[in-house]
């Protein structure tokens, strides 16, 4: 178990070493967004914004416009939540390579409650032209996503979580923006394909394991919500004939919507959605929140069975 935000912090430190143009902006959350190590090692390239997320977006835009590679970090509810218009106009429409890091996304923020649990950040970011949206599944992938974001010329959003989450990928696991990774594949064909994003991918894998002898399943890690890997998604969806999407985010506007839009246009198939259903979160332990809001392995397994059943009707 490790924090995805640690993967980000580790990569940022390396980027500091590799590229003098990398700068870090933070809205008074250096420790919890894991910018602290960069701040200590490269104080002249760490820019303190105070609790001012709107200005963080505009200042980052100016820095990128000049030629820097700015990473700006806060909690996802504030950035890209509070500063959405500044991101839209000064970063996305301006098409400037600011890297927006939204930590503490999802219900797993836990005790802090609904105000701090970002469940709409993917939706906010994926509707902006020019924006790339990354949602890494574990610490290692967050590390790779951060390095890939720095190398990508345009604006990028990276979604991170507060809690320690299971490690599912290794150093050797490939990571390419826009290229989905198959994580679990039944031996003889598949009946249902599961597209999952973020740390909740682990619950999808547990569900697939639980159904190992009952329903042959493929589980695919959609670490890039935008641009969506349409080829891989359509290939596996058509082979399986039924789809389940899994995300710790509102179903509306998130991964589920993105996949549904793709399938509706190209290959409409029975699809079940795991995610938050037009509700706010609340205080609680991450595990009990995931259970309460219907995103536990048992819920995913039930969705897989339901998707499979819908094929024959």
């Amino acid at each position, binding site marked *: 178990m490790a924090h995805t935000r640690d993967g980000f912090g580790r990569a940022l430190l390396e980027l500091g070493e590799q590229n003098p143009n990398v700068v870090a902006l933070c809205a008074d959350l250096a420790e919890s967004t894991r910018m602290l190590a960069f701040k200590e090692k490269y104080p002249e390239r760490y820019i303190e914004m*105070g609790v001012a997320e*709107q200005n963080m977006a*505009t200042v980052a835009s100016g820095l990128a416009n000049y030629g*820097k590679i700015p990473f700006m970090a806060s909690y996802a509810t504030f950035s890209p939540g509070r500063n959405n*218009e500044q991101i839209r*106009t*000064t970063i996305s429409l*301006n098409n400037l390579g600011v890297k927006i890091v939204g930590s503490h996304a999802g219900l797993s923020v836990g005790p802090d409650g609904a105000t701090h649990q970002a469940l709409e950040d993917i939706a906010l970011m994926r509707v902006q032209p020019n924006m790339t949206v990354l949602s890494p599944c574990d610490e290692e992938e967050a590390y790779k996503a951060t390095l890939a974001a720095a190398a990508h010329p345009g604006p990028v959003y990276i979604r991170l979580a507060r809690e320690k989450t299971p490690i599912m990928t290794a150093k050797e696991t490939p990571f390419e923006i826009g290229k989905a990774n198959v994580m679990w594949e039944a031996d003889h064909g598949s009946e249902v394909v599961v597209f999952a994003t973020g740390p909740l991918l682990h619950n999808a894998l547990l569900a697939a394991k639980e159904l190992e002898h009952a329903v042959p399943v493929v589980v695919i890690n959609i670490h890039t919500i935008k641009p969506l890997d349409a080829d891989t998604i359509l290939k596996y969806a058509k082979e399986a004939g039924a789809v389940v999407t899994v995300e710790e985010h509102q179903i509306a506007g998130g991964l589920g919507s993105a996949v549904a839009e793709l399938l509706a246009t190209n290959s409409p198939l029975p699809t079940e959605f795991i995610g938050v259903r037009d509700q706010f979160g609340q205080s609680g332990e991450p595990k009990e929140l995931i259970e309460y809001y219907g995103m536990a392995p048992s819920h995913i397994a039930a969705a897989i069975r339901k998707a499979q059943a819908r094929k024959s009707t």
Partner: protein
Amino acid sequence: MITDSKIKEIELKAEAIRETVVEMLLAAGSGHTAGPLGMADIFATFYFYILNHDPKNPQWPERDRLMLSNGHIVPVRYAAMAHAGYFPVEECLTLRRFGSRLQGHPERERLPGMETTSGPLGSGLGQASGYAYGARMDGAKFRVYCFMSDGEQDAGNTWEAAMFAGANKLSNLTAIIDRNNIQINGMTEDVMPLENLRAKYEAFGWHVLEIDGHNVSAIISAVAQAKAIYEKPTLILAHTIPGKGVKEIEFDYRWHGKAPNKEEAARFLKELRTLKGKIQSEHE
């Protein structure tokens, strides 16, 4: 020292820019009139005297950066850029048309030399501050200018940026507020009182100057003074007359956000052309 003939030349450019503004707004059929006319002297002074720039090489790395925060007055910038040689003056008549580089609100990627994308108010000072911060990290010598409206002093982001620029002593940044006292809903002091603006910016760590925004030599000397201040960013509060040059619309907030019709434009242009003679005789 600036010569009288240079001042005359700039004033004549400002007059030509005002004419172009009226022509482009008439052609577009929509847009803002008061702000662009009020800022014509400042834009003319920048594009024809202050800015270190090369219209034939808009990406020249050492150019001064002019960031326009209140994007709605962009017709005056388009007109100034065209008269300075960035693109043909005739292209100004494509303002707000489908396929035009001259969007209703400016976009960096569409027009070389535009520097940034703006329109939604309150986000320009932050962008200019980030730009100035990055440039200072590398020891770049160019200066960053940010033009704002007074209406956007209502916006929180403006003050976040003012605090940031003051805290970081961004002395390579000079901001100018077009203090024309109008906004869409009425007079600024009725909509949301802004005063004391000077004291507010000073409290945020800025050096503040107040000038008549139609006085070319005052604009030049204020910017020269800003360059001499090494410890703080400088704000120039430029008092301007909205609609300047056309008596019937001066100070009238109803002209903030509308364009003249054919008859109005003809009257405005006729009046503006008489300014040429006034400028000539004043400098004789």
